[in-house]
């Protein structure tokens, strides 16, 4: 609503916007095949490479990062707990279970069908998480993320067991470990549905901010609490499922990005939600570029890089002194 004029958020916005632009351009020109900047648009081969591989890959990273950051933000809002995200609360694992089931029972299903099944399973798994998490005592805020981690772990163990029996461990590795190296034109476009979800989240930003005040305050302000809960769950589940199916799950994005943005700009989502999306995109794209460069010409999957970068950021968030001011 009315964001008090302060230079800090503005500076953050400029840095995030500029950073994403620089990352976007560098991502187009970093890779195994040489793509000199000067000839990129004159040489037809180079242009082909740009359009078929580099641009789709960059867009996929941007879409995945923005989506995951928003999904994390919404989960934190709905759980009223800053330390949950789809990858650590059973959402991603449930999505894996869904897609595994479809792959086993109906191998001919299209990617869209698989995504739908994964979304449904993710919705179910996340709803169960929330039903249980709301019973945990609010006096111990760390129990909720802990419960989520183990809950996800148990579903993950079940998924691994089934995949093992069915000899599908190779697939499982693809779904559980985010990697953009296989992204080509024609194989990532489903992620645009995630962009739609981000837009939906933007549209209901005010309502989400109120949700964060709790059930009683929301109802007191005339909000359809149960309805918003459903919308939030659907956004989270669809984004998580899309990521699992198309590029594989990337951990920590949904956790660290909303926390850092909240620390700098506060929680009035009307003002901050675009920066959450932008920073998520930047973080994932940055990690993907690191993964491409660190062992050049080989590639390290973005999921692995994010496990290190995101894990370190998360521990920093956990042990920093509480923010004031």
């Amino acid at each position, binding site marked *: 609503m009315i964001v008090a004029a302060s230079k800090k958020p503005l500076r953050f916005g400029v840095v995030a916007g500029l950073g994403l632009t620089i990352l976007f351009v560098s991502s187009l020109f970093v890779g195994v095949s040489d793509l000199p900047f000067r000839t990129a648009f004159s040489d037809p081969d180079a242009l082909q490479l740009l359009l078929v591989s580099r641009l789709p890959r960059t867009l996929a990273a941007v879409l995945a990062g923005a989506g995951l950051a928003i999904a994390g933000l919404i989960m934190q809002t709905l759980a009223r707990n800053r*330390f949950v995200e789809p990858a650590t609360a059973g959402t991603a694992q449930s999505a894996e279970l869904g897609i595994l089931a479809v792959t086993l029972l109906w191998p001919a299903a299209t990617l869209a069908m698989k995504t739908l099944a994964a979304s449904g399973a993710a919705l179910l798994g996340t709803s169960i998480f929330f039903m249980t998490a709301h019973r945990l005592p609010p006096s111990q805020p*760390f129990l909720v993320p802990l419960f989520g*981690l*183990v809950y996800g772990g148990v579903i993950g*163990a079940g998924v691994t067991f089934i995949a*093992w029996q069915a000899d599908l461990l190779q697939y499982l*590795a693809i779904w559980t470990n985010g990697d953009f190296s296989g992204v080509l034109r024609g194989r990532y476009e489903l992620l645009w549905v995630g962009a739609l979800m981000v837009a939906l989240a933007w549209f209901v930003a005010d309502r989400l901010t109120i949700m964060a005040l709790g059930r009683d305050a929301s109802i007191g302000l005339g909000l359809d609490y149960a309805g918003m809960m459903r919308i939030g769950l659907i956004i989270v589940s669809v984004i998580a499922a899309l990521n699992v199916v198309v590029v594989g799950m990337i951990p920590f994005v949904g956790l660290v990005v909303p926390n850092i943005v909240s620390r700098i700009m506060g929680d009035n989502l009307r003002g901050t939600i675009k920066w959450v999306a932008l920073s998520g995109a930047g973080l994932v794209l940055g990690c993907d570029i690191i993964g491409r460069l660190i*062992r050049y010409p080989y590639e390290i999957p973005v999921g692995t890089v994010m496990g290190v970068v995101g894990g370190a950021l998360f521990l920093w968030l956990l*042990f920093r002194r509480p923010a004031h001011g």
Partner: protein
Amino acid sequence: MAKNRIAILAALSVLSVVAFLTIGLRGNIAFVLELRAIKLLALSQVGVSIAVSTVIFQTVTGNRIVTPSIMGLDALYLFGQMALVFALGGLGYAALNPQLKFAGEVLVLMALACALLLPMLRSRLDMGLMLLAGVVFGVLFRSLHSLLARLIDPNAFAVVQGASFANFNAVRTDLLAFASVLTIAALIVAWRARHVLDVVSLGSDTATGLGITWSRTVTGLLVLVSSLVAVSTALVGPVAFFGLLVVALAERIVNTRRHAVLLPAAALTGIVILVGGQTLFQHGLGSSSTLGVVIEFFGGIAFLLLLVLGSRK
């Protein structure tokens, strides 16, 4: 009463050991028996190490739902292992005797564990925060481990995959001799420290009042835990919730936290579950490789129950 129950546990472990050795025995009996005996030694060592290290770790942290692996110690071991390869790979490290390498890895784990956990214990973190930090440490070190693995060998898909779950079927028998020495030494120290552990479980203030030099004792106990974790992780790989399951069961069975009773009870429960479970899976269910996953599954559920029920009280 506790003595009777320990006797029952002992009988059960003997039973599972005998079953493990004899069921389905055919062909060259001497050869098969020897093979099985080696595997039995490894499995029971793993069961005992995990059980005992979990009991000690829970006592030191004053927290009944943590285990060394939930706090990321096994991930730390794998990371240390990979870091050694990464740092010394050029110096012919890979060609060294495996027992010697193992010794180096144990030392690295001890140092890393003390460096990470002592500050955490000293700052008396809230239980939930400590657990959460531990779990994230685990993810971080697992990621670092696979990052290093890929840096060393970019096509190392198998390494990463193999490190994610314990496989009780592919035991590293080449490390067995050294591991056995380490385990037995650690068990002797743990047994002699059983009364000290009882005092430590009262918390740092009371224990200090009763004449324990807190920081030195805790450091010593962490070193002990590290060596046991190193043994079990080196032999079969990481297990997340097995220790929790074993100790929770053992404590329920003997109904005491006194270490003179709990330590042997937990060790025996570990043997029963691991050796008995392996026998069952090998002969009854026909797929021995998935025991690790099944244990994770039930251990995880046990953890969730402890968390939800424990927080209700």
